[in-house]
Each structure stands twice: as structure tokens, then as C-alpha cells.
């Protein structure tokens, strides 16, 4: 196991990992005692040093608790009592035979995921609901989906539930929109269901545009039927016959799989007229977007489907009242849709038990940046940032210090180390000065300049501004100009105040969420890393060494006069005789850094 994890510290010598659910119900059911029992039993049976014990948060399976998971191989034991431990340790760990009577079968949709994943560091602390089938089933084969209780939720609502029951169940679940704003999904369904109209639409927003985010793409590519099933259920609940998936043309594989899934679902009578021989009919079509970021905003998306230029319009009226072609429209994003079948099958109450007071269920994040394990992680709401970065993400490469974490995509905020114990939910993140967004999460270490980072994000948002409203169109441009001059060493006193003044005005006055959130990276970095801005402006210094214009390269006493730097310098900024200490002419130097890379003696310092 060493080879793959070169440079990573999580090399485990232990043969087994036991994960014990440490949720309140399991504790009540003696999970603490079980732990003691495990520890003593391991010692007794001579396995010391070969087994590590982990505690997990609530796994949402309280009725089956206490839960003990044995890895590798993912075997989940339920209703474990301290008395069961000796047998489990002996039979499973020593002899390699799981204790059949205690193994939980696939009761819940989501827990299958762990069954085939041995990667406990990464997956063991996650909880996969929306991604429950991703990486498990063949997404291009409807049989695979059917075999894992696919479309059973649809069959259930058509058999046993009235449309109002479905809405009630979604409301009960406490699910909130996963597209960013976190509006209660059940309420949205209810508003749309209550509208009287001959025509209503259901839309899946798959216009994922955040740089570095790919949650929706992965979900569709890994499990397209889940999204379809969620939409059909919604169609039944609100009285719509027509669904549209708006997805960007840059996702050809996801589109191909959706097309295949739609065709297969039609063939099986799961889409089209009289679904599953009921009197409910619903069909779904795909509309491709051309990749404008703003088309992820619901009113712009609707305009785009209508064939107009994708620009947001003021709300109200909300799409639930007047949406696509002026008809009541229910629009949710991919991740939200993927939760629906689970909520229907396992119940709103079950879902509601996961997460925090105000934010229920799980959230998928695209974990990226300076972290060992990058990738998609799905965690229960309420998980701390620290847990994601260090436990799931495996910490920062080379054990560099953590500097900040940026959540919520290009319009999220940057949170410094003191916020690492912030719980992930809509309110806590907002309180900390960031947003949930659609789930981007970028870990930043000391090598990143916060001013450049803010500049990078505002460059993106100003580029993707639709150009409709003044604050976003003109204001983000001016913010970019100010940030650019700061990073180029031309910052002026008062620039920080100008950025704040513009930023607050843009937040308060812009037409849509893109503009309203565009200043977040800047305002949050000013708040948390103001000294970096001041250094750039006053001292013309970039502590991360990222702003090329603020760097100077200096030859130190380690120089042996080999001349390597002199040879690579494209502008002849290095002078010096052989075997003597060289010198870099600062006003000639273009800060390309080639001398720095070429020096074998660490004789050039960035300052």
C-alpha cells in the first residue's frame, strides 16, 4: 500500500479497522461499553497493533444500532452488544469468517456503498445518499439500477401515496436546495403544487459551472436514473407532465448517459404515458446549455430554455408561480433530485434525523486544492471543516500549515484556521462569512496569496457576468482592476476601502445571486487576511511569493559562481564573473524565476 501513497503519511500497518458508530442513540445503546470490550478482546486474542478503532458520527441507522463496521471488506454488524464482541473478533478477525447472524443486510439504500469499498479513511467518514450508487452500478444499464431498488420509490408513490402525501414527505425530510441558496425543497414543491394551471414544468438544473466543481456531472454519469426518478416523482407530486433537464454541452458523457437512461426508462414504461400502468404520464427531455455560468441561475436558465439570451430577471414572480413559458415550474438541481427517491423509500423522518437543526441530510463537496485526497466527498450536514480537510482529505501535503478554506465555488468566502471547527450547514457557513454554494471546497496553504486568489475569483465572475445589471457588470470590473493593480505593486492607499465599498454595494444591489455573491471572496479575504492586502499595497510585498511583480530575486552567499543562472536568464539580468558571487540587476529582471529554478545551490532567494 505504500507505493500509491508516496508522500502521504496515512500509511497504516494495522490489518483491520473497526469503526464504531458514536451517535447519541448508539451511545445510549452501550456503544461506549462495546468499545471497551473491543479493546480488551483485541489484546486478549493477540491482535494488538493490528487493529485500529475509529469512531464515526451518526450513520443514520439508529434502529439497527449500535453499529460496528469491520474493514477492509466493509462488513456492517448491527445491534451489537458487548457480549457479541469476543465472537466477532475471533471469527471475523482471526479466522476470516464474518458472523453471519449479526451482519446487516441492505436495508438502507445508501449504505451499500461502503459494502464494496475498503477505503475506510476516505469513505468511512462519509455518508453517501445522493452518490449512493455512484461507483457501484453500471450507469448505462437500467438493470443495474432496477436491481438496487431503482424506481421503487416511484412505484411506491404511484401505489400508495397521494400527490399531497409526497409533498408532505419531502417537507418532513427538511431537505433544502443543494444548488446554493438552500431554499426548503418541500416548500418549493408545495408552492408549485398549489398553483392552478393546465401546464406545469419540472426542471433539473444540471448547469454546473463553478470552476473545479463536478458533483453534478459525477452524479449523472454514475447514476442517471436517480435524477430521472426524482423528477418523475416530483411530476406526480405537483401535477406536471413534462420534465426538462438543462445540462451544459460540455458534459458529453453525462448527456449520452442521460439520453440512454431516458430511452431505457421509456422502454420500461417508467417514462411516457401511463407510467407503470398507472394513469400518470410524464416525460423528460434534455436541453443543452452553451456553458454560460449565469444560466445556473434559475430565471436565466428558464430564459435560456425558452430560446432567449440567458439573463436573470427580477423575482418575484418566482418560477413556482410563473416559470418556463409563464407556467408554474419546479426547478431543483441534480443533487437535490438525487435525494428524492431515498426520502420516499426511507421516509422523511429518517432523512430528517441526519444533519443539524436547520440543515438536513448530506452534502457533496468537490474537495480540491492543497489536500492529500482530492475528490468528491459526501458528508452529513454538521460535519466540521476540520474533519473534511484532515480526516477525509488526509491533511495538507508535506504537512504545511493550513491557511484557509474556500467554500461555495467562485463566489464563496475564504475562512482561516479559526473557522476549521465550523459545522457545515447553510447558516453556520453564512455566519462564518462564506456560503454553502453548490459545494466547491478548496484548501489553501501558505503558498497561496490571498489577494491573487480573490483576484482569480473576481476575474471569473466578472467574465461570467451576464452584463445585465450595473453593479455586477461594471462593479466587478472595477474590483478586478483594483485587485490587479494591487497584485502588480501599484496598489494605493484607500484601495481596500474602495473594494469594500464596491463589494458591499454589489452584494446589496445586484439583480441575481451571481452578482450578490461575487464580492464574497474579496470581502472575506479582506476581513480575514487584511494584513496581506496592506503588505501588497504599502510594502509592495507578497508573502506567498505568488505575485510575480512584487518579487525580487537576490543572490545569497551560497553562490559559487557556476553561471547557471546567467545562462538561463532571458533578459541578461545576471552579472558576475565565474567562480565569484553573481548579482541580479533588479531593474532588468522580469521575475520569470528561471534563475531560481536553475540554481543547484539554493543561492537565489525570493524576497
Amino acid at each position: 500500500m505504500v507505493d500509491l501513497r508516496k508522500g502521504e503519511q496515512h500509511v497504516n500497518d494495522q490489518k483491520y479497522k473497526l469503526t464504531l458508530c458514536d451517535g447519541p442513540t448508539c451511545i445510549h445503546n452501550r456503544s461506549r461499553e462495546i468499545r471497551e470490550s473491543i479493546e480488551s478482546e483485541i489484546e486478549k486474542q493477540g491482535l494488538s497493533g493490528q487493529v485500529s478503532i475509529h469512531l464515526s458520527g451518526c450513520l443514520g441507522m439508529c434502529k439497527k444500532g449500535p453499529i460496528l463496521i469491520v474493514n477492509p471488506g466493509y462488513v456492517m454488524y448491527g445491534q451489537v452488544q458487548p457480549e457479541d464482541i469476543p465472537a466477532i473478533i475471533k471469527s471475523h478477525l482471526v479466522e476470516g469468517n464474518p458472523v453471519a447472524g449479526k451482519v446487516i443486510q441492505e436495508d438502507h439504500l445508501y449504505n451499500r456503498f461502503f459494502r464494496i469499498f475498503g477505503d475506510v479513511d476516505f469513505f468511512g467518514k462519509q455518508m453517501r445518499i445522493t452518490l449512493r450508487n455512484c461507483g457501484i452500478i453500471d450507469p448505462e444499464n437500467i438493470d443495474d439500477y432496477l436491481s438496487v431498488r431503482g424506481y421503487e420509490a416511484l412505484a411506491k408513490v404511484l401505489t400508495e401515496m397521494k400527490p399531497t402525501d409526497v409533498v408532505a414527505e419531502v417537507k418532513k425530510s427538511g431537505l433544502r436546495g443543494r444548488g446554493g441558496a438552500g431554499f426548503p425543497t418541500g416548500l418549493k414543491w408545495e408552492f408549485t403544487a398549489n398553483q392552478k394551471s393546465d401546464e406545469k414544468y419540472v426542471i433539473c438544473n444540471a448547469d454546473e459551472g463553478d470552476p473545479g466543481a463536478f458533483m453534478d456531472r459525477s452524479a449523472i454519469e454514475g447514476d442517471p436514473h436517480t435524477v430521472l426518478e426524482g423528477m418523475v416523482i416530483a411530476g406526480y407530486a405537483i401535477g406536471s407532465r413534462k420534465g426538462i433537464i438543462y445540462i451544459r454541452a460540455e458534459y458529453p458523457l453525462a448527456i449520452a448517459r442521460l439520453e440512454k437512461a431516458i430511452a431505457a426508462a421509456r422502454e420500461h414504461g417508467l417514462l411516457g404515458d401511463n407510467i407503470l400502468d398507472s394513469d400518470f404520464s410524464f416525460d423528460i427531455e434534455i436541453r443543452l446549455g452553451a456553458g454560460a455560468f449565469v444560466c445556473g441561475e434559475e430565471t436565466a436558465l428558464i430564459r435560456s430554455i425558452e430560446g432567449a439570451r440567458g439573463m436573470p430577471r427580477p423575482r418575484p414572480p418566482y418560477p413556482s408561480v410563473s416559470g418556463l413559458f409563464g407556467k408554474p415550474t419546479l426547478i431543483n438541481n441534480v443533487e437535490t433530485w438525487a435525494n428524492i427517491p431515498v426520502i420516499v423509500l426511507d421516509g422523511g423522518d429518517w432523512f430528517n434525523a441526519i444533519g443539524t437543526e436547520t440543515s438536513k441530510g448530506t452534502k457533496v463537496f468537490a474537495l480540491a486544492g492543497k489536500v492529500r485526497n482530492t475528490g468528491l466527498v459526501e458528508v452529513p450536514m454538521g460535519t466540521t471543516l476540520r474533519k473534511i480537510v484532515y480526516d477525509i482529505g488526509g491533511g495538507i501535503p508535506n504537512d504545511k500549515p493550513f491557511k484557509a478554506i474556500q467554500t461555495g465555488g467562485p463566489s464563496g468566502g475564504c475562512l482561516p484556521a479559526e473557522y476549521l471547527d465550523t459545522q457545515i450547514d447553510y447558516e453556520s457557513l453564512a455566519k462564518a462569512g462564506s456560503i454553502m454554494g453548490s459545494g466547491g471546497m478548496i484548501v489553501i496553504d501558505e503558498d497561496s496569496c490571498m489577494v491573487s486568489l480573490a483576484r482569480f475569483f473576481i476575474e471569473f465572475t466578472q467574465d461570467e457576468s451576464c452584463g445585465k445589471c450595473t453593479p455586477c457588470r461594471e462593479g466587478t470590473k472595477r474590483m478586478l482592476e483594483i485587485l490587479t493593480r494591487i497584485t502588480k505593486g501599484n496598489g494605493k492607499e484607500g484601495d481596500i476601502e474602495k473594494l469594500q465599498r464596491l463589494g458591499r454595494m454589489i452584494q446589496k444591489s445586484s439583480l441575481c445571486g451571481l452578482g450578490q455573491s461575487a464580492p464574497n471572496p474579496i470581502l472575506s479575504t479582506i476581513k480575514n487576511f487584511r494584513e496581506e492586502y496592506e503588505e501588497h499595497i504599502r510594502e509592495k510585498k507578497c508573502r506567498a511569493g505568488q505575485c510575480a511583480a512584487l518579487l525580487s530575486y537576490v543572490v545569497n552567499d551560497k553562490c559559487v559562481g557556476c553561471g547557471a543562472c546567467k545562462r538561463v536568464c532571458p533578459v541578461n539580468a545576471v552579472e558576475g564573473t565565474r567562480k565569484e558571487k553573481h548579482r541580479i540587476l533588479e531593474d532588468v529582471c522580469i521575475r520569470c524565476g528561471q534563475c531560481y529554478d536553475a540554481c543547484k545551490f539554493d543561492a537565489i532567494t525570493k524576497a
Partner: protein
Amino acid sequence: MVTPIDIIKKKRAQAVNRIISKGYLSTKRVYVGMATCEIAAGSKEVMAEFRQAIANGLTDVYLSQKGCAGRCNLEPTVEVVEEGKIPVKYGKVTSERAREIIERHLKKGEVITEWLI
């Protein structure tokens, strides 16, 4: 009266049968991750290796694709599930590694531990 639930249960049974008839109960099941990210990392070539091996006479193996599991830095991934054994997952699989997994693991039953996730 036949309810939608009855229909879906029947459909599920038929689906399971179809999967089984495709060889699901083979002693070894091989899953290759095939999402955009995995394909970009080279999983198409890996898949081709396994297909080729089966075409060349490798028996008792059920080969299937699947979506992304989210382990971006270790892609492409290949998972081997053997009846009665602990499932294993290989990371950063290349064509060469795939050939070796075929030779050593699938044919001889040796788990190549250094490539495991």
C-alpha cells in the same frame, strides 16, 4: 389488481435475472470506473485490456463499468470482487497494471497489494 409496486418488483426480478445471465455469478467480478474523469485518466484503455483478455479466453470473469466514486487523485480505479473474499480496489491503473492484474490476480488469484487503495 396489479399495482405499480408489483410491476416494479417483477421488473427488478427480471433485471437481476438478466444480470445473472450475463455472468454476474462468475467467481470474479471486475468493475472499471468509467466517468469523464476516469476516462480522462485513461480508463478506456484499461477497460480495453480487460475486454481483450476476455476475448482471448479469460473465463469466469464478469466485467462491468461504473461511475465515479470520487477518488480523483487515484483514478482510474478497478475493483475486483471475488466470491467469499474481501473486495479489493486498485488505484492508478494503467494498461500495464491492467495486464498484470489480469495475469496475477484474475488468473492466479494473487492480490497485488502494493497497488491497492
